[in-house]
C-alpha cells in the first residue's frame, strides 16, 4: 500500500488534513498563543518593576496605596479578564467547530 493510500485510509489523518480541522487548529492557536505571550510579558514586566524599581513601587499614590499595590491588583484584573474573554471565545468560536468535527468522526465509525 502506498503512503498516500495509507493516509486516506486512516480517518484521523484524513481529518487532520481536512480544511475544517486546519481552520480549527489555526483559530485555536491564533487565540491562545498571542494571549499567552501577552500575559507572560505583562507579568514579567511587573516582576521586573518589583525587583528593580523598589522606590517607584513603594511610592504612595493615594493615601498609603502604592504603585506596587496598584500594579499587583491589575495583575488580578487582567487574569480575571483573560479568563472571561477566553471562556466566551471558546464557547462561541471553538466549541461548535470542535463538536461538528467530533460528530463527523463519530459518523465515519
Amino acid at each position: 500500500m502506498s503512503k498516500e493510500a495509507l493516509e486516506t485510509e486512516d480517518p484521523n489523518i484524513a481529518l487532520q488534513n481536512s480544511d475544517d480541522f486546519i481552520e480549527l487548529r489555526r483559530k485555536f492557536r491564533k487565540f491562545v498563543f498571542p494571549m499567552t505571550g501577552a500575559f507572560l510579558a505583562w507579568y514579567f514586566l511587573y516582576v521586573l518593576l518589583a525587583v528593580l524599581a523598589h522606590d517607584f513601587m513603594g511610592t504612595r499614590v493615594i493615601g498609603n496605596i502604592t504603585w506596587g499595590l496598584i500594579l499587583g491588583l491589575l495583575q488580578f484584573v487582567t487574569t480575571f479578564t483573560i479568563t472571561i474573554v477566553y471562556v466566551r471565545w471558546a464557547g462561541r468560536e471553538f466549541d461548535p467547530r470542535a463538536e461538528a468535527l467530533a460528530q463527523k468522526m463519530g459518523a465515519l465509525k
Partner: protein
Amino acid sequence: MNTALAPTLMPTATTVGNPAINIGIFALFVVVTLAIVIRVSRNNNTAAEYYAGGRAFTGRQNGIAIAGDYLSAASFLGIAGAIAVNGYDGFLYSIGFLVAWLVALLLVAELLRNVGKYTMADVLSFRLRQRPVRIAAAISTLAVSFFYLLAQMAGAGGLVALLLGIEGDLGQRLVIVVVGIIMLFYVIFGGMKGTTWVQIIKAVLLIIGAVVMTVWVLAKFGFNISTLLGDAAAAAPAAADGTARDLLAPGLQYKNPVDFISLALALVLGTAGLPHVLMRFYTVPTSREARRSVEWAIWLIGAFYLLTLVLGFGAAELVGAKAIKAAPGGANSAAPLLAFELGGEILLGVISAVAFATILAVVAGLTITASASLSHDVYNTLVKKGNATPEEEVKVARISALVLGAVAIVGGIFALGQNIAFLVALAFAVAASANLPTILYSLFWKRFNTRGALWSIYGGLISAITLIVFSPVVSGKPIDAVTGKSPSMLQGVDFHWFPLDNPGIISIPLGFVLGYIGTLTSREYNAAKYAEMEVRSLTGYGAEGASQH
C-alpha cells in the same frame, strides 16, 4: 538585634489558645469528612472510579476542589506569614501563583483532559514510546509530589508547635503521624471521589474562614485599606542594622533580583506541570467541564489571595512581626495568631482546624496522584507489561498509597521548621523544568519524539534538583541573629556553590532546550499516532467519557 531587649508581650513557647478546643474542632472536621468519604466511596473498585472519581464531577465541583487542592498550607499560612513579616514581597508570591493558572487554562487543561486517562504520563507517552516515557514521567511526578508533601507536612508540624506549644518534641511528631494516618484513610477508602469531597469541603471552609477574618480585620481599620496599610507599615520593626523596613515596597525578602525572577518563572510555569493539579482534570466528563473547572478555580484562588493580602498586613499590625517570628512555627503562625488576636480561643480553634484540614486535603491529593502514577505508570508498565487488570492496578495503588503515606510522615518529621511557601516554590521549579516542556511540546509540536521527552524530563529534573542541593536553601546561609539558626536546611555545613535559592532560571530553559535538541537528533515520528492525538485533543473525539452506572 538583641533578644533580651524584645518586648515582654512576646509569646514564649507555650500554648496559644486552648488545646482542647483546637483539637475538638479539628476532630469534628475529621469525623464529618470521614463519614462523607465512607458514604461516597461505596463502589470504588474500578480504575476510573478510584483514580478519577468516575469522571462524574461537574466543572464547578472540580473547580472548587482544585482551589481546595491548590490553596495549600503554603498559600494560607505561608503567604499570610510572608506578607506579615516581609510585606509586599509576600504579595508577589501570590500573584505568580494566580497568573500561572492562565497557562493551565489556555494551553493545557482541555487538551490534556481529552488525551489522557488517569495520569500525566498518559498524555506524555501517547504518541511516544510507552515504557521509557511513562517511567520518566512517573519519576518526575514522584519528585514533585515529594517536595510538595514535605512542605505540607512541615506546615502541619509548625501548626502543632503553635497550638500545643511543643517544638521538635515527641508530641509534635505524633501529630504528624496522626495526620498521615487520617489522610491515608481518605485516600485508600475514598479514592479520588472521597479525596475530592474532602477538598471541596475544605475549600469552602477555608474561604469562609478567610472572609470572616478579612472582614474582621477591615472593621478594625474602619474598612479603609489605606489606613490598614499605613498602620501595618508603621508597626514594622527596623532591620537589624537599624534601617527602616518599608513593608509596602518590594525588596525586603528578595535582595537579589535574579533570585526573584527565577522564583517568578518557577511559579508562573510550574502550576500547569503539577501532576496533582493535572490529575484533577480527569475527574470531569468533558474538556468543556475541564475549562469550567479552571474558570472556577481562577475566581476562587484569585479571591482568596486578595483576602490573604488583608490578613497578612492585618497580622503585621495586630500581632506584630516580632511576635510572629518568635512564635513556635515562625512566619507560618501569622494567620493562626491573627485569629487568636481577633476572636480568641474559638476563632483560633476554627482557623487552626481549617488549616489542618487544608493540609490533610492537599496531602491526600498528592498521595493519590503519586500512588496512581506508581500503579498505572510503573507497576502496569514495568511489572505487568501493560496487562494489569483494573482491579490489580487499584490494589497496587492502595498499597502504594500506604508506602507513600509512611514516606510523607517520616519526611514531614524531618522537614519540621522549614518555611513552607519556600518548599512549595521548589516543587514548582521541578514541575516547570521537568514536566511543562514535555507537556507543551507533546501537545503542540508535531516533530516531538521520545528522545526529546526523555532529555527534557530527566534534564529538567536532574538540573533542578542538583541546583537545589547546592543552593543556599540547603546549606550555607549566614546565621540569623534573632533565631540563632541558619535559615538553610542543614546547620553547621556549607557546600553551596549555586548562588540562587530557586533553580528555575537555569533549569526551566534547560528543560525546554534539551527537549528541542533531543527531538532534532532523533528521526522517530509516528504520523498515525500524532493524528489521533491531535484530533482527540482538539475535538474531544475518542476521549475517555464518564463511567456509567
